[in-house]
């Protein structure tokens, strides 16, 4: 089920949980005041313990605001999603690709925006060439000369402008992306890795955007390989993007 990112989401649940989540330490702490890690097999949960919430790695309003047209009869409805996990939306790349999804063909104007939380001006604001065909879309930052600085949680959005005079009618989906330095040891592993293994290494390290990019590039080069599609589906499902995952 969680094949692709199993290792990662344990690491992703945050510092407070780290101690109780790491397999080795979970053993030592059994019977202590921490609840047992989910897969440690430990049974006892001391009643005095504070519950420790382990967020699932999936969709969200905070990290992601899902768009969708609200029922105007006669108008086409569609779903708009940015392919971003809610938490720990990380990349190692200075110029990653952003992926988004729309469930129907569309000829309305579509804008991609990247906002720097520390700045007042968006880092990028670009009209996407239309019409846009339904399905998954790729927006390579390298095509637009935009570079992400490390350690800044940028918010990026895709906006469908259904009425340019009434921007309150915009349909918007957004997520965050943050560039981080590679975790210790990952660089060496990546260098020796085959292309097919990259997605797993990134997913394992919790680098969601790069995992998605790696698997998507493989799919582009071998579109008939059903296993690759299944891997991407798993990755998307784990981030709560079930509708996108089911779409082919």
């Amino acid at each position, binding site marked *: 089920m969680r094949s692709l990112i199993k290792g990662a989401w344990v690491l992703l649940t945050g510092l*407070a949980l780290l101690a109780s989540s790491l397999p080795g330490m979970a053993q030592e702490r059994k019977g202590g005041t921490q*609840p*047992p*890690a*989910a897969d440690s097999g430990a*049974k006892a*949960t001391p*009643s*005095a*313990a*504070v*519950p*420790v*919430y*382990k*967020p*699932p790695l*999936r*969709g*969200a*309003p*905070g*990290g992601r605001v*899902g768009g*969708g*047209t*609200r*029922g105007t009869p006669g108008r086409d*409805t569609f*779903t708009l999603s940015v392919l971003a996990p*809610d*938490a720990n939306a990380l990349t190692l790349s200075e110029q990653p690709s952003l992926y988004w999804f729309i469930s129907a063909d569309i000829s309305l104007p579509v804008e991609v925006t990247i906002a720097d939380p520390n700045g007042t001006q968006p880092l990028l604001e670009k009209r996407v060439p239309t019409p846009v065909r339904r399905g998954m879309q790729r927006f390579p930052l390298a095509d637009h000369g935009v570079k992400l600085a490390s350690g800044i949680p940028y918010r990026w959005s895709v906006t469908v402008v259904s009425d340019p005079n009434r921007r309150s009618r915009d349909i918007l989906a957004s997520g965050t992306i943050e560039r981080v330095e590679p975790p210790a040891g990952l660089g060496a592993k990546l260098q020796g890795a085959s292309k097919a293994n990259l997605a797993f290494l990134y997913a394992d390290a919790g680098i969601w955007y790069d995992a998605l990019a790696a698997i998507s590039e493989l799919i582009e080069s071998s579109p008939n390989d059903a296993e690759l599609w299944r891997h991407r589906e798993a990755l998307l499902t784990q981030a*709560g993007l*079930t*509708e996108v995952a089911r779409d082919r």
Partner: protein
Amino acid sequence: MDSLALSVLAPDHSGLTIREQPSLYWVISNPTALAVELTLTDSRATEPVLETRIPGPIRAGLHRVRLDDYGVRLEPGVSYRWYVTVIPDAGRRSKDILAGGIIERAEPTADLRDRLARARPEELASLYAEAGLWYDALAVSSELIERSPGEEGLRRQRAALLSQVGLPDARE
């Protein structure tokens, strides 16, 4: 109007439940006589699953909405968005004060079902929390508090749960 803080007790990501008819909790900072609405929408549909006026006047503090009171059932694997809306001016809905979260019903694993069946009531919140079932952890924690309102330890547990998703404590 006095400042009014409204929050839903939901994590900032899709929160999970294994219940078909879970409870939703929300908090308001002041008592109000304004109209308050609860909306639950299915991400796949355009019409809300539930849109109801919460009977007022509303007291300050924690409020619970039981979906079974409204005959609403969640389908597994569907993410629902829910909102609480305070409506200061029914003629100008742009003035609404709104708070919302996402809830999704998940199927429990056999292992979890087994552990839940064997757990003592006071162990449930931890079991749910570690399984990532935020709404259920909050619900059992709140139910224990309702039963033993004087017990500080239970309140500390819930406060911890809330702070883990960035919410302040919900004192009644």
